[in-house]
């Protein structure tokens, strides 16, 4: 599964970041009430995920490994990702106001999103090369987009029908997510 296609396919369907690895659930449940927000969030996640992957890969193999500081990776990754996102946001606000308007509000939110740090750590854990890491980040972001966009469409539908009061909102959303996860289980045999 280490070919480009294998990594992307696996990241989208087999080990989907939300529906089978449970990363980034806060944003998945939080902003999925409308399709428009989900799209903005997906774009921001894709952007930050690729950026964070590049940054963490460079830091890990250029600084941490040569100086034998691998045990500091969690600390270094979270700080560098947070700083980078902050800088990008400032740059975007000044030079690209339209883009900032579309996804700017989501940027600070995803600095501490576990999906971003999770992918940085998973890439290192699996000893991916630079190209493989980027591929994995792209595939994962695509998987995130697929899950959150489909989920927000389903959630818009859930507003209408009658159901017991205690099932409204979050409980029924989680059960819907469970059905989506079952649908993806059909892919789990593919290697």
């Amino acid at each position, binding site marked *: 599964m280490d070919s480009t296609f294998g990594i992307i396919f696996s990241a989208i369907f087999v080990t989907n970041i939300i*529906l*089978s*690895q*449970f*990363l*980034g*659930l*806060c944003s998945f*449940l939080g902003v999925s009430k409308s399709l428009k927000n989900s799209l903005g969030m997906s774009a921001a996640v894709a952007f930050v995920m690729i950026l964070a992957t590049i940054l963490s890969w460079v830091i890990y193999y250029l600084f941490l490994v040569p100086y034998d500081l691998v*045990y*500091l*990776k*969690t*600390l270094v990754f*979270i*700080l560098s990702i*947070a700083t980078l996102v902050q800088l990008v946001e400032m740059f975007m606000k000044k030079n690209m106001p339209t883009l900032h308007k579309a996804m700017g509000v989501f940027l600070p939110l995803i600095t*501490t*999103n*576990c999906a971003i*740090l*999770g992918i940085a*750590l*998973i890439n290192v*854990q699996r000893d991916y090369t630079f190209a493989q890491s980027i591929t994995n980040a792209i595939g994962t972001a695509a998987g995130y987009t697929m899950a959150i966009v489909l989920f927000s469409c389903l959630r818009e539908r859930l507003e209408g029908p009658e159901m*017991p*009061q*205690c*099932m*409204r909102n*979050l*409980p*029924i*959303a*989680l*059960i819907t*997510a*469970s*059905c989506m*996860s*079952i649908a993806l*289980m059909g892919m789990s045999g593919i290697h």
Partner: protein
Amino acid sequence: MLKELTKGIIKENPLFVQLLGVCPSLATTGSLTNALGMGAAFTMVLIGSNLIISAIKSFIPEQVRIPSYIVVIASLVTVIEMLMEAFVPDIYAALGIFIPLIVVNCIILGRAEAFASKHGLWSSLQDAVGMGIGFTLALAIIATFRELLGTGKLLGIPVLGAAYHPMLILILPAGAFITMGFVFAAVNYLRQRNEVRHG
């Protein structure tokens, strides 16, 4: 005198009431052992971070407080990660990436910002222990359902006997979502019933 301790367990339970820390509560509740391991690691980090942040709160400049909290939390997580790898390697392997991800657990940062940075050491310790117990309890409840119905065992010991046909789906990812959905529905139901009675 112990009111800061008890509030985190039921009234302000981090998972059921504040809806924080959803990711680990789905990912680590496939077995009760893992859930308790996660709860213990989480509680230790929370106690450490609340104590340290409460102790140094007057030295941290207002503008850089969030990054400072993150540094404190990330260092503690690294320490706990190494301890777990050394002493409980099985649980460490089972929890995998979710131990380093305690860094971005919103409960810990939330308690640092909302509580430890404004209260003394003793209150912060109580707050951390209470929230830790509350979160562990919530994880244990979800894990009990999943492990018992999904495998017929509890803590790895067969409980339901050979006649029980395990519902395998509950220990798979889909089962995590569905169990969580029903547990949340039950919590909502109890809360709404309480409101009707008292309100």
